[in-house]
């Protein structure tokens, strides 16, 4: 892992996001758009820095917001890795996903179709709304020719992307892979859809307190927008060019529940197996994993099954956190941003807090860095991500 990039509700890059995470700041705020008034949910974790402040105007016009986020995060990761254009592009891959894709483009262009007719529909509609759009845009930007792939597994998407990227390198298909995920669907229909499932917090009058994983008063997740990107690189390739290595993707586990389209398995059976697979691939003992950046979205039904799985597989000395308490749920961008947080926890020896954890659920049974960051030396940290459809991903990072 030689490069990191992100644009999130907490900051326009990794440094500002990490600073806000360790300081325990919430990125959740009211949605001030007119359309929010008719919705049961009127809060979200919106980008701290608008893509329009970063990308040229014509570029913006031709990219869905999720693609804009992907491009911004990937450019930062590329620059951070110190990569240059003389890289062999036939050995450069991209694995970049989005949970929902270009839904806002679809909705906007459908309005144009209905109101102004077919001829006024943008010729960029299809490349903007296709679910492989973020991957394709990043691949094109850097001229990747080893393969551009777009996993789509809801909220497990970008954790799965990192796993695929590591596989590409292990299989010898690429020397360098830009991985990540991006999401931007803070719009009436996606919010109404999640709200109809009763998946979202309705704490509209207290936005910064709405996302509260493991707290007894949690009432759903807060939708967020943003994304993260990580440059994975074959170790000898990174060493040969003297690159800074943040951490190592020591293991990854991907499983599926075969249980329910949206409900998590009550004992986290599939999630637990993903954690075991990651440990096995890394060849390290569960006791060496000091920290888990958990999926923990702040829903009444999801948070506790996960901690049962963590306790069963990793034991009860691991320190958890749920950075979604601050970023909201970035959906397809969550795994990438939370992996960056896991890696920075190893690098800086700081576990960011889980804010709003006033009264821990009695079923939690594990140690959480509640409300204050915790300084702790880490040799290995895990990130978990689970998605609608029963997708489970666990990533294990170790000190470089």
């Amino acid at each position: 892992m030689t490069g990191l990039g992100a644009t999130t509700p907490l900051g326009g890059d990794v440094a500002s996001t990490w600073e806000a995470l360790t300081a325990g700041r919430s990125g959740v705020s009211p949605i001030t758009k007119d359309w929010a008034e008719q919705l049961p949910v009127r809060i979200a974790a919106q980008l701290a820095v608008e893509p329009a402040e970063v990308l040229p105007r014509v570029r913006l016009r031709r990219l869905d917001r999720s693609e804009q986020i992907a491009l911004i995060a990937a450019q930062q990761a590329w620059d951070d890795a110190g990569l240059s254009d003389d890289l062999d592009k036939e050995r450069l891959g991209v694995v970049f996903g989005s949970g929902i894709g270009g839904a806002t483009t679809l909705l906007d262009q459908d309005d144009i179709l209905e109101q102004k007719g077919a001829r006024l529909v943008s010729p960029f509609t299809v490349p903007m709304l296709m679910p492989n759009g973020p991957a394709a845009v990043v691949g094109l930007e850097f001229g990747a020719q080893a393969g551009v792939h777009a996993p789509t597994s809801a909220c497990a998407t970008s954790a799965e992307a990192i796993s695929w990227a590591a596989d590409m390198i292990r299989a010898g298909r690429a020397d360098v892979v830009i991985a990540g995920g991006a999401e931007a669907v803070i719009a009436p229909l996606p919010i109404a859809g999640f709200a109809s499932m009763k998946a979202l917090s309705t704490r509209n009058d207290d936005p910064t307190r709405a996302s509260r994983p493991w707290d007894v008063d949690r009432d759903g997740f807060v939708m967020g927008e943003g994304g993260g990107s990580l440059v994975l690189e074959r170790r000898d390739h990174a060493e040969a060019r003297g690159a800074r290595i943040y951490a190592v993707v020591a293991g990854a586990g991907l499983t599926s529940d075969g249980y329910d389209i949206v409900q998590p398995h009550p004992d986290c059976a599939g999630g637990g197996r993903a954690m075991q697979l990651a440990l096995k691939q890394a060849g390290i003992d569960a006791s060496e994993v000091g920290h888990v950046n958990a999926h923990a979205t702040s829903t009444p039904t999801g948070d506790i099954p996960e901690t049962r799985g963590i306790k069963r597989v990793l034991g009860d000395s691991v320190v958890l956190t749920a950075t979604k308490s601050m970023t909201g749920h970035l959906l397809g961008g969550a795994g990438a941003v939370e992996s960056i947080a896991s890696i920075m926890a190893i690098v800086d020896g700081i576990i960011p807090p889980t804010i709003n954890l006033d009264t821990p659920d009695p079923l939690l049974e594990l140690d959480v860095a509640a409300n204050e960051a915790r300084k702790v030396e880490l040799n290995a940290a895990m990130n978990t991500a689970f998605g609608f459809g029963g997708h489970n991903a666990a990533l294990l990072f170790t000190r470089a």
Partner: protein
Amino acid sequence: MALSRDEIREGLSDILEEVAGVNPDDVADGKSFTDDLDVDSLAMVEVVVAAEEKFGVKIPDDEVANLKTVGDAVSYIEKG
């Protein structure tokens, strides 16, 4: 009152800047949309639709292929 060629070129230049990021200083009759101004086929669709709206003309799809340069487009719009 009919627009002059200069006025049409200026209006076209505004559209090219807006939808395709073309520098207005580069817009001249002899410039090719694809070779000189980097306006690809998808961007050209946007240019055509915007020009139809701005100048109140119809530019059928089979006509677009003949509009290779800025001058071609100015002449077509001038004829109305």
